[in-house]
Each structure stands twice: as structure tokens, then as C-alpha cells.
């Protein structure tokens, strides 16, 4: 046994600890709760020089999976981590990885699949992975997370296997639970266990060219899949060998199917991951009462431990299969069907099997809960009638007398049509273009306008999003329908059963909001044309997104803009993925520290320049693009009014507002406005409009003698002031140069009549 040290770590921390030992060549990732910490921790290790892994923050999970696939074809050791919809968004790539037989490791930290959106644990994501061809290992404790990550590398790379491996742990229950763990003291012990990855061929060997990923129809594909089937058969055998080897190394043994108190058991609970650990406590207590119950906990899910399960169940009288995922309409979750198919492959089997769906969306499962399922298993042996073979455990009927109670009056037509804001359009002679004049009242009168968002939302103190959104809506007259991308503004306004939205609100996942709203816009116009909606009804459609939604959703947003639907896309840019803990976004400034761009001897913060989303959107040829800041509310009110005019008369509008995030900028809550003003004065965030192709600057700091260097702005935020240190001067100069270039270009566009 090799030397190890004791520590107290969570599941996510243990993925990072394993990664430190393995020192993967490459990690491609996209942050999603609850797996996000994994990339954060490894990025921090890299900054400290503890690993040399290349960290690639992809533009979404689909891109992350693609990046991992690419790296793995080159023979690299590759890591990824995701959860829930991240897994589903990357799903298309997973059979590609398995079908081309490229090993890598993906940590799936389980979470409920949207919708409705739920960030807590269940296995609905995992169950989608069963058909991908990947090996699936289940880790029920932080220690198992560590050990199985190490085993996964060797298992996947084994010459008889060559498959990607998923290591699955329960979101929050395991990923965020601290337990006493053992960690190898010497990296070399793990490295010599793993050896070097052997590749029959790679895409990085020009002397031995290969065509990887050909076009393969019948009659060949079925043979490729048979090879995959054979690889899984081999994987089961190799797993058995490797776990013994690993036992020699660590003193810890991982069977394909863990059996707990199964000797003499009459009934057992078959259950995955952390809930099985809880169930052991219930079994201990019941065994003391003489009740013959046990636990069956698979560790290997793909390949499924069929033979071990047959042996373990042969003397049982009943089994309860408890699952954190349903397969609606099939009368049982996926595991129920798989376990039953093993049991009943022998026609004479008379084991009574109950299927129970529990703990969806993170609903707690404690010892008492485990006990009641075990008790059901015992009761069904005694021929008690009325025990259903399938059911949900832990649902709540609710109080039928409770009906949704309105606590706020609905916005009346008079309230939304007060005509505070007026737009006068005059056609420029000889063109199709217009000049818009906007008149708005004093801020005080606008303060009496009924808000589209109600108080009581749960944003952080000092959050700039909501003042920004309210300023925008102050400039919008009439009825609106909003679509919010996943992100801060969505999460804090709609925690069930509460909603801060006084107007109709729709959510879709943040790679797909723009197409979703475009569909609704077209349905509105078609229903109106058919007379199903009155001619007098007018709705302004507004999509609200963070800068994260403009990363993962950039492609669909561009497509939507090119189709030029009558809608507004408003991006609140707080310069990072703040809802998931402040990871870098593509709009984060160069060099800024985030939880995925650490500062350290090997890292100075974010490594590429901020995305110029306004210019990208302008290139789609839409009629109106604007930028604004939350610190200049009245400017934003005017731009909102223009946006509404353009959406009604010309087509799609895109606007971007810079808003403060005290939590992740490392700044005081009260200071938001000053920081934003300096972002504008430093020309990091110029405010301007592009009306039908013509650029017009809203504010030129030089004219007011307020132009400052970028460092004046960076020093205001805890997460960027390191760029002022002498050792970082080259990064500061690089950022200043890029900002100057963009600003001069923008001024040239403003000056030239054609730009």
C-alpha cells in the first residue's frame, strides 16, 4: 500500500485531487451547477503550478464535448465535468466519443434535468447517458469519487476496452459533502499505476495518417456496434482486475456490485449512489430488530453487473428498486426495468419486485425514508395485498383548498399606456431611414410608472441587473411579453411558487431563448392574421439574457437576428457567469480574475480579450443596436423607447447594458455606479447606437475631458486591480491597446457617413 494522507474533502474537491495526481493533458468544460467547482479547483491548481493541464472554457457543453473529443483523438488524457442539461446539450457528442473508441473521463455530478429548472440532485441526467456506449462508474462518497477517477483513466485506456468513462457522483449530497478521505502522498505512485496512454493510432502522427470518423452505412455499422458491445464485455473483466490492483495500491476495494448485509437477507433495496449510504444506516437499525434486509448498490452501471446481481439476489424474497428518476409511461424507472430483466431472465424467479421513484429534484432522503421502503419490501413478502408494484415515494398532494392567490392587482391597460415616453419618427428624404426624437419626462414621474417587475425578488444586495432592467422598461410603453434566459435574473425572480414578474414571462435554457421567442413572435402575428387575436392587441416581445446566454446562445441568437423577427434582445452584461459562482464569460476583460481564471505564478487571469457582442450583432444587419450603462438611466430609457419603435417598425433589436456585480467584481455594493462610469470613461465600454447601419456615439469622454486610462477603472475592482502591479504591465498594455483600437475604430465609424 502506498503512502496516503488524511484530509477532509468534498466530492468535487476529490475530482480535483485525483486530477492533480493524473495531470490530464486537457480539460474542456462549461460551468454548470453543481459540477462547476471541478474546473474552478483545477484552474486554481494550474495557477499554482500543481498541474499542467490545458484548461479550455468552451462556449457551451456541446463545444466542451467537441474540444474534449478533439484532444482525445490526439492521444491526450482528457477530462470534462458537467451536470443535468449540460450533459444533455453535449449528448450528441457522447456516442461519437464512444463509437470512435476514444477514452476520456467525464465527471457527471448528477442534477435534475430541466424543466422546470432545478439545480438539485436526481438521476434524470444519468439515465439519458445509459445508451451512449460509455462506461459508467458510480461513486457514492467523496473517497470513491477520487478512487474511481483514477481507475477510470486506466480502465478506459485499456487495450481491450478503449472507451470513454463517466464517473458519476450525486450533486450536493456527494459533490458538496465533506468527509474524511485518504489522498496519495506521491503523484508517482498514481502515475506508475496508470502508465502512459497507449494509442493504436492518433491524429497527431503525420507519418501514420488515419481517417477518423468515416461515413459508414450498412453493412458495416452493425459490426462497429458489435465491437462496442464486446468492449463492454471486456470492460467488466478488466474492471475486476484493475480494482484488485488498485486495492494493492490504496487498501480500498470497489466491487462491481456492493452488497451490504445481504447474507440471509429476505428483502433488499436496490438503490444508486448516496442514497445507498443513507440506507445502510436504516439496515443497521433494522437488523438489530431482527429484520432481514440488505442493500444492493451497483458501482458499475455500464457494463451492468448482471452476473453479480443474479448471485446477490438468488435467495431474496423481495426487492425494492428505488430510483431518483422516472421513465414516464413505462411503469418504472430505467433501473427497475434493468433489474427486473436480470431477475426474470430466469422464468422461475418468484422474487417480488417493487419499483419506487423518490428524491426527485434533490428531495431529501433520510434514514426514516429508507426504512419505510425497506419495510414495504418486507410487507410484500407476507402477501399483504394492496401494495402497488410501482409508485412515487415522497410526493405531496398539497392542500386542495389552496388555490393561487393574487396578491397584486394586475397591470391595467391604463397603467401600461401612460404615454410617459414618446417617439417621433421622421423619414430622411430620399432614404428608407428615419430620424427618431424621443421625449421622456423627469425621473420622478417615471418613478410613478408601474413596474413590470415586482419587489421581493432575491437578487444580491446592490445587484445592477434590476435597476438596469427597470430603467429599460421605463422606456417601454404598452404590453410586453418577456423571455428570460437561464441566469441570475431568471433564478432570483421565479423561485417557485413565487414570481416577481407582473407581465407574462417565459423561460428557456440559455442556448435557445432567441429562437424560442422568435417562434412566439411569429405565432402572435399568424394568430392575429387569422383573427384569433384582436387587431387592437399589440405586444412588444423582449428577450432578457445575461452575457453567459450570449456565449452559449450566440449561434442561435445570430440566426434569429438574421431572420429579423419583430423583437428586442436585451443583454445585461455583468462580465461573468455570476449565477454559478463568477466564472469567466467571453465578455470578462482580459486579465480579470474569476473563479475559472485564477491568479497565480502560472496565470494572470483571463487569457483572451472581451467579446464585442454589439459589433457581432451589428454585423447581422439588424436595424438597431445600442449599448448603455445602468449608471446612466435616462440614456437607457431613451434607447429603450427607440428599441421599441424599431422592433415595431423594422425588426430585431439588440441592446447591451453593462450592470454591476459587487459580489463577483470584488467591489462595494454601493459603488456600482462609479465603477460603471469609469468603465465608460476608460472606453472599455463605449455607449453608442447603430441605427440602420449608422454608428453614433452617445458619449465621448474626451469631449468632456473625462477620458481615463484603463487602469483607473481596473483599480476599482478587487478582481482586476492586480493588473496594475509592475509584473503585470505587459497584460495591462495589451488590454489598453485593444481598447484603444476598438475605441478609435468606433470613433471613425461615428465620423464617417457610411459607417
Amino acid at each position, binding site marked *: 500500500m502506498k503512502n496516503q494522507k488524511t484530509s*477532509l474533502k*468534498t466530492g468535487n474537491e476529490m475530482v480535483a485531487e485525483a486530477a492533480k495526481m493524473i495531470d490530464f493533458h486537457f480539460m474542456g468544460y462549461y460551468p454548470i*451547477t453543481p459540477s462547476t467547482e471541478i474546473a474552478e479547483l483545477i484552474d486554481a491548481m494550474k495557477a499554482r503550478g500543481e498541474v499542467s493541464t490545458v484548461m479550455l472554457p468552451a462556449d457551451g457543453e456541446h463545444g466542451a464535448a467537441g474540444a474534449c473529443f478533439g484532444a482525445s483523438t490526439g492521444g491526450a488524457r482528457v477530462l470534462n465535468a458537467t451536470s443535468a442539461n449540460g450533459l444533455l446539450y453535449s449528448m450528441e457528442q457522447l456516442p461519437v466519443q464512444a463509437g470512435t473508441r476514444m477514452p476520456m473521463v467525464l465527471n457527471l455530478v448528477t442534477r435534475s434535468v430541466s*424543466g422546470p429548472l432545478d439545480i438539485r440532485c436526481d438521476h434524470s441526467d444519468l439515465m439519458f447517458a445509459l445508451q451512449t456506449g460509455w462506461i459508467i462508474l458510480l461513486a457514492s462518497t467523496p473517497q470513491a469519487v477520487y478512487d474511481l477517477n483514477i481507475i477510470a483513466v486506466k480502465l478506459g485506456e485499456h487495450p481491450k476496452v478503449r472507451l470513454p468513462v463517466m464517473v458519476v457522483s450525486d450533486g450536493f449530497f456527494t459533490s*458538496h*459533502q*465533506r468527509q*474524511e478521505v485518504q489522498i496519495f502522498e506521491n503523484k508517482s505512485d498514481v502515475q506508475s499505476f496508470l502508465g502512459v496512454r497507449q494509442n493504436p493510432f492518433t491524429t497527431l502522427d503525420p507519418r501514420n495518417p488515419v481517417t477518423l470518423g468515416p461515413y459508414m452505412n450498412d453493412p458495416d455499422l452493425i459490426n462497429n456496434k458489435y465491437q462496442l458491445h464486446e468492449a463492454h464485455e471486456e470492460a467488466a473483466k478488466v474492471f475486476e482486475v484493475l480494482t484488485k490492483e488498485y486495492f494493492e495500491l490504496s487498501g480500498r476495494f470497489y466491487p462491481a456490485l456492493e452488497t451490504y448485509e445481504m447474507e440471509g437477507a429476505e428483502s433488499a433495496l436496490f438503490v444508486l449512489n448516496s442514497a445507498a*449510504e*443513507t440506507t445502510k*444506516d436504516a439496515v443497521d437499525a433494522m437488523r438489530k430488530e431482527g429484520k432481514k434486509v440488505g442493500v444492493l448498490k451497483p458501482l458499475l452501471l455500464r457494463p451492468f453487473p448482471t452476473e453479480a446481481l443474479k448471485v446477490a439476489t438468488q435467495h431474496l424474497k423481495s426487492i425494492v428498486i428505488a430510483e431518483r428518476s422516472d421513465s414516464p409511461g413505462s411503469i418504472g424507472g430505467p433501473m427497475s426495468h434493468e433489474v427486473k430483466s436480470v431477475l426474470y431472465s430466469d422464468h422461475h424467479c418468484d422474487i417480488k419486485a417493487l419499483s419506487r421513484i423518490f428524491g426527485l429534484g434533490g428531495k*431529501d432522503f*433520510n*434514514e426514516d425514508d429508507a426504512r419505510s421502503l425497506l419495510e414495504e419490501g418486507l410487507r410484500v413478502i407476507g402477501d399483504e395485498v394492496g401494495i402497488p408494484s410501482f409508485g412515487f415515494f415522497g*410526493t*405531496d*398532494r*398539497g*392542500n386542495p383548498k*389552496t388555490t*393561487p*392567490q*393574487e*396578491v*397584486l*392587482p394586475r*397591470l*391595467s391597460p391604463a397603467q401600461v399606456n401612460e404615454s410617459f415616453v414618446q417617439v417621433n419618427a421622421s423619414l430622411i428624404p430620399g432614404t428608407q431611414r428615419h430620424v427618431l426624437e424621443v421625449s421622456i419626462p*423627469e*425621473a*420622478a*414621474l*417615471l418613478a*410613478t410608472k408601474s413596474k413590470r417587475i*415586482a*419587489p*421581493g425578488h*432575491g*437578487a*444580491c*444586495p*446592490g445587484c445592477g441587473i*434590476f435597476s438596469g432592467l*427597470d430603467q429599460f422598461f421605463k422606456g417601454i410603453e404598452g404590453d410586453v411579453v418577456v423571455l428570460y434566459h437561464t441566469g441570475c435574473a431568471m*433564478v*432570483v425572480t421565479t*423561485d*417557485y*411558487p*413565487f*414570481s416577481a*414578474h*407582473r407581465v407574462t414571462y417565459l423561460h428557456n435554457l440559455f442556448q435557445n431563448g432567441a429562437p424560442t421567442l422568435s417562434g412566439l413572435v411569429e405565432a402572435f402575428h399568424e394568430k392575429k392574421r387569422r383573427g384569433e387575436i384582436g387587431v387592437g392587441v399589440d405586444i412588444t416581445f423582449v428577450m432578457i439574457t445575461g452575457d453567459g446566454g450570449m456565449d452559449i446562445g450566440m449561434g442561435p441568437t445570430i440566426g434569429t437576428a438574421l431572420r429579423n423577427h419583430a423583437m428586442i434582445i436585451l443583454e445585461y452584461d455583468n462580465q461573468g457567469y455570476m449565477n*454559478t459562482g463568477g466564472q469567466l464569460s467571453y465578455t470578462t476583460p482580459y486579465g480579470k480574475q474569476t473563479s475559472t481564471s485564477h491568479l497565480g505564478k502560472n496565470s494572470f487571469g483571463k487569457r483572451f480579450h472581451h467579446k464585442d457582442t454589439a459589433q457581432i450583432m451589428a454585423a447581422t444587419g439588424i436595424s438597431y443596436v445600442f449599448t448603455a450603462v445602468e449608471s446612466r*438611466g435616462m440614456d437607457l430609457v431613451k434607447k429603450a423607447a427607440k428599441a421599441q419603435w424599431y422592433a415595431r417598425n423594422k425588426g430585431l433589436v439588440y441592446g447591451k447594458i453593462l450592470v454591476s456585480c459587487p459580489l463577483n467584481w470584488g467591489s462595494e*455594493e*454601493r459603488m*456600482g*455606479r*462609479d465603477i460603471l462610469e469609469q468603465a465608460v470613461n476608460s472606453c472599455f465600454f463605449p455607449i453608442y447606437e447603430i441605427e440602420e447601419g449608422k454608428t453614433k456615439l452617445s458619449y465621448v469622454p474626451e469631449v468632456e475631458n473625462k477620458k481615463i486610462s484603463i487602469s483607473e477603472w481596473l483599480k476599482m475592482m478587487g478582481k482586476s486591480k492586480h493588473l496594475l502591479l509592475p509584473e503585470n504591465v505587459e497584460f495591462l498594455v495589451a488590454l489598453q491597446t485593444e481598447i484603444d483600437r476598438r475605441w478609435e475604430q468606433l470613433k471613425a465609424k461615428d465620423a464617417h457617413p457610411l459607417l
Partner: protein
Amino acid sequence: MWFFGRNKLQFSKRENVAIRLEAIGGQGANSAGKIIAEAAILGEHFTGNHFSSFGSEKRGTPVKSYVRFSTVRKPIRTASAIRTPDLLVIFHEFMMESHPEIFEGVGPHTDVLINSKKNPHEFQFPKGVHPRYVASVPATEIAVKTGSGLNTIMLGAIISFIPEITSEHLGQVIQSFFSKLSPEGKAANQIGFEKGLHSFKVKTAKPDQDRLEPSSVTFPHFGYVNAPIGGVITTPGNSVLKNHEASRKGTAPLLNRNECFHCGQCDLVCPDFCFVWRKNPDVGFGAELLGIDYQYCKGCQKCIEVCPVSALSLGKEEEIPQSEKNISWVKNEKSKN
């Protein structure tokens, strides 16, 4: 050197201990739980675990942090919520009103420690809540005075309720935890810790005293029979039922009506829509600021920064006049129809 003596509580040691910390995101309950767990598991070699339950990664929402340990090394395997804590720590007094569910599972074996300036005998608990000891520590007040983290002060008070963990082990963990702080930060936290240690008041709860009925705000109770299908919420703006006063850190904006000229700048910057306005042709710009609805104010002070005169100033929460607490955004909204 930090002082790690204990207050003179004579509690007997237990075999299995379950601790639940109830806090608002940003108060450091997760770190406090981690510190206790490290001292118990790595320091004392108990078995145990720690985990926290929270929503998205933000400030201001409820956080629960759990620590379990066994001095007799019973295997601790479950990561389910602690339903019957031996020690319940409430990081903000206001949560007792806004989140009455935090008292779940409090029984005769439970000690309750509350961040509050009140004396322990002044607390009123929901019906049926009968703890063993009740203690209070004015942690917010100490934090405002010393600049210490709230969780450090709470830890100072907590250690007297977990005699199973020796001061030395807890001290080592706390010191390594704060090793990365600036010298000023370290000093502030050290003072905070010591004040927490010495400032709490404790008493045995009287089981027969008058109890408060549970909170009068009834939140909707939906289940599969009555929840609208598809997860739809059919009640626009019902977030107004929520109360965010526990997000404040002891201070709040105070309105001086003599100075206010109703310019509307505060309404442009308030993220929480706390300012209550109505049209009034007799006031400067045709609109009048009626006041601040403190139910939603999280104390960010952006309004104070933007106010062009000195109508808004920073004050302590207890300086909010009672009369101001009647200002209601919802009532004003209802009056518009």
C-alpha cells in the same frame, strides 16, 4: 495569539452530535460549518461530515449548513438534512420571523443560539418549540463595530456549546482558515472571535412560557392535486410576499423628508424597488416620494450614493422610525387601480 478559552458552561459530552446552522448567503455559515467539521474530524479524529444546502451562488438567500460527528466513531454515511439538531444556530434573528421552518426538529436535547441583542428570555418561539438552552450573542452589532466576519463571532459563541471539541483543535483550524487574511483582517476577526466567546448570554428554556403562533404569512401549499400543471405560476408579482430584511447587515438608508425634493434618482438605482411613489401635481416634478418599503431593502446603499442632496443617509436598522414601517409598496400599487 488568539484566545481559545471557553465560557463556563458545564455541558456533558455526547456520543453523537448534529449541528444545523441557519443563515443567509454571505454570512459565512458554510465556512463556519467547515471549520467545526475540520476540528472534529481531523483534530479530534471523530467520524463525521459537513455539507451545506443552498440555491444559486448568490448573497441573500437562506443557507443551511450541517455538521455531524460521532465521538465514538460511529460511521457517518448519510448526507441527508439534519432534522433533529443538537445545536441550532441562527445567524440572523430576523429569520425566526421570515423563515419559521428553521425551527424544524428542535427538541428537549436542542440548544438554540441566536445572533441577537435580545436577552434569551425575550425570545418567543413558534408553538411546540421547546429547546434545552437558549442563548444569544449580538454578533451583527459586534461585526459592525469590529469589522470582523459574522461567522467568526458566531464561532466564538458556538464553541461553548460543543464541549466535545477541544479549544486547541478549533483554534488551529480557525487560525489556518484566516491565515490568508490581511493583518487588519486577522486582527478584526480575532477581536470578533473573542467578543463572541464572551458576549453570549444563556438560559434554560422554560417549557411553559407563552409561545408565538407560527408566522401569519401563509405561503401557498401546492402539491400534485392543486399545483397548476406545467409548473406555471398564475399569480403575477407574488414575490411581494417575501421579506428580505435579513439580507441587511445592521444598517439601512434613512429618509429625511425635509431634505428630499423628490427628484426620482433613488428609484432609478434601487435594485429592489423599495421606493414608493405617487403622482402629486403639487410636488416639484409632479411626483412624490412617500417613503421606503423596508420589507425589500437589502441595505446596498446605492440610493444614498446617488441622492443629490442629503435626504438619504446611512443609519442603524434600529433607527428606522416605527412610522416608516407602514410604508407599503403593495398598498400603494393597489391604490392605483
